[in-house]
């Protein structure tokens, strides 16, 4: 979009201006868009990018992006599932209907799709088949129920299928019991194999609320549903010795049962169920060699094959291990004029990091008076030593500048961040929370500087997971 090739964007439940690094570039990119659709529960920075700090009235007139702001339902106003980091899919029901003119996200998306499909029917277009032939089996096409979607993701039999081992037959139209029944011949359909088993013929497994824990190990196998196959611990074969006996007799997850010639236990075995330990199949079944990797083949990673330590792109020192190749050579960077990187020589001598607080949730609790009361305004945590050196007192306004932007907030002088001595040099580190921006209760009342933290951060992506380098970059600190 910044380069001008993408003309529009639908942003639902994601405040793109706030979440990405190098925020000014994100704002400048949106200025070039023809249209922007934002579905949110609050007016957010993305839908109000045109009134970011520093944009004058004249500049505002030159922004031609048409912004459509659609009020959406909040999490308590719609049913659906939430998946936690223990991989449990937990179904919830709507508590209250969406207020005012707000609508469910899926209704908005469905109605946009149906209108686009009508246009393709009437006017045709390049490669219309995926749009015209998309399966749309919902009872009310304009209002798809999320339960229907969850069932669709679980998958069903399109034709009668029979499992060769158990001779169990699934009739056409029935929900699949799990991913083992998926076929690559078109006789089954499924939204995502890892979720297959979450909504079977026996009903919504993800809505289960069984609080029993037969093993006493905290496994709770009947609470919600854990992907894949309701397995609570991945690679649980690794909890047994090579002979298939649990390493820890007090915490037995699974074990090899010689009588039945099967892996059984308190959890669903993450293993070939009848693979005798004598056959030496490795526990890490997603790797062909069956063991964990220190040597990662290049096919799996952009860098490697061995783990290596690299300095961030902006670092106060050269990597002591290999100063000539200080940072990752295959890191993902961009080369527009907006993508600037600072150095010590330019005066950016302080290391800066960004983080979240327990008092706020991302960028939307700054619209809730309760959270605002707990942490009312942004701050910058700086070590006592740096504050003394610069004559900065606690709660005094200071200015932090990186090669990309400026952030102004009150100083939080603390002893919790200590100066570091690296290679004989004293290096200061500062930290700032990411939550505040230019749209919220305090921001609207102009009670703070309305400068979001990501004005400072660089667009540098880790080459494998594409995680931006939010946690380490260089800045200078001044009194504001």
């Amino acid at each position, binding site marked *: 979009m910044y380069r001008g090739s993408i003309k529009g964007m639908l942003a639902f439940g994601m405040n793109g201006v706030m979440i990405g690094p190098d925020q000014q570039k994100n704002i400048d990119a949106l200025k070039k868009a023809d249209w922007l659709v934002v579905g949110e529960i609050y007016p957010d920075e993305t839908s109000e990018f045109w009134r970011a700090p520093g944009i004058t009235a004249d500049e505002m007139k030159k922004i031609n992006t048409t912004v459509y702001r659609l009020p959406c339902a909040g999490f308590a106003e719609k049913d659906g599932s939430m998946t936690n980091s223990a991989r449990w899919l937990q179904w919830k029901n709507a508590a209250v209907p969406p207020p005012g003119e707000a609508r469910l996200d899926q209704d908005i998306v469905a109605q946009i799709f149906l209108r686009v499909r009508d246009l393709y029917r009437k006017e045709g277009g390049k490669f219309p088949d995926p749009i015209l032939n998309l399966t749309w089996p919902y009872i009310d096409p304009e209002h798809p129920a999320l339960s229907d979607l969850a069932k669709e993701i679980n998958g069903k039999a399109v034709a009668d299928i029979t499992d060769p081992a158990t001779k169990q037959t699934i009739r056409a139209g029935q929900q699949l019991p799990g991913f083992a029944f998926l076929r690559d011949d078109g006789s089954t359909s499924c939204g995502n194999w890892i979720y297959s088993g979450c909504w079977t013929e026996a009903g919504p497994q993800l809505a289960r609320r069984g609080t029993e824990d037969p093993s006493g190990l905290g496994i709770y196998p009947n609470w919600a549903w854990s992907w894949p196959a309701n397995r609570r611990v991945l690679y649980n074969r690794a909890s047994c010795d090579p002979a298939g006996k649990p390493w820890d007799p007090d915490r037995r997850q699974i074990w090899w049962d010689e009588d039945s010639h099967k892996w059984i236990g308190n959890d669903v075995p993450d293993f070939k169920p009848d693979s005798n330990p004598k056959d030496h199949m490795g526990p890490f079944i997603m790797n062909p060699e069956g063991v964990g990797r220190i040597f990662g083949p290049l096919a799996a990673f952009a860098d490697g094959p061995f783990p290596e330590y690299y300095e961030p792109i902006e670092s106060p020192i050269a990597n002591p291990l290999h100063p000539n190749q200080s940072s990752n050579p295959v890191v993902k960077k961009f080369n527009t004029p907006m993508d600037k990187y600072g150095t010590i020589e330019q005066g950016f001598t302080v290391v800066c990091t960004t983080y979240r607080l*327990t*008092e706020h949730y991302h960028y939307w609790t700054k619209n809730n*008076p*309760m*959270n605002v*009361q*707990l*942490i*009312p*305004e942004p*701050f910058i945590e700086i070590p006592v030593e740096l504050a003394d050196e610069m004559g900065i007192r*606690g*709660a005094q306004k200071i200015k932090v500048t990186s090669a990309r932007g400026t952030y102004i907030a*009150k*100083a*939080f*002088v*603390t*002893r*919790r961040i200590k100066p570091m001595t690296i290679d004989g040099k004293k290096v200061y580190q500062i930290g700032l929370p990411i939550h505040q921006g230019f749209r919220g209760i305090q921001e609207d009342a102009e009670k703070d500087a309305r400068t979001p933290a990501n004005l400072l951060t660089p667009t540098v992506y880790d080459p494998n997971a594409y995680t931006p380098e939010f946690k380490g970059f260089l800045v200078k600190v001044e009194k504001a």
Partner: protein
Amino acid sequence: MSQATLEIRRISGHAGSVPGAGLRREFEVCKLIDTTTCIGCKACEVACLEWNGLTFSETTFNNSYQTMPETQWNYWNLIKFNEHERDDGTLQLLMRKDQCMHCEEPGCLAACPADGAIVQYVNGIVDFQQDHCIGCGYCMTGCPFNIPKFSPTARKVFKCTLCVDRVTQGLEPACIKSCPTGCLHFGTKPEMKALAETRAAQLRQESGFAHAGVYDPAGIAGTHVIYVLHDATNPEAYGGLPNDPRIPWTVKLWKTPLKWIGNLAIVAGLVGVVGHYLRFGPKLPPEEEERP
């Protein structure tokens, strides 16, 4: 907040016995706060405001994660944050949830002159009855923890009720329910005391906190809110938790000896007046001497 179903043990400013005393057997309740597993998320602060229907206040950042310097008449539950440098030079960020301690011998109740404005239930909860409060603020001087606060608009004093309305219905206080780390516990006093001692022993034996212990100060006969501290020898480091809290001697002096001396003085004065009358009779205007 009147809780008619709870049995009252003590009443402020009340002459005579407590109605229905000893009628039923009730457990003494207790809140246990393990400061060693608190992460300072302030969920308890929000739960307190929401359950008790308290109003929002505007706050400003003042070089701390702490929301405000101390509890307020409409903010009963406050986590106090303190950066504490230990003797060995290591730093601790101490977080202590501050609220009414529900003392076994409540200084507020002792100081209160208004009949029925402060009651202590048999279960240990010390509860302000704003209907009877005269807004004199004496309870504030009686409290060794600086908890009760005066509302200039209501002209009455407020503080944590230990969610007496929830506890009567068999529920835990709102702060306990909201805690995500499980550092807050609620139960009977003996249960909580045992749990606290177990945790303190674990900290001493397994976590290298040689002075870990339980805060249940004897000077006020124990409290119905107790703490596990990393260093029980230095409670002051936890945002000014008093080392040996007692009811201020001024309150004690005034409420016990002085009160009786005062009563005695009233009676003695009356006796003197009557005695004087009997002995000397009424004082008559001096008879006018006839002019010579």
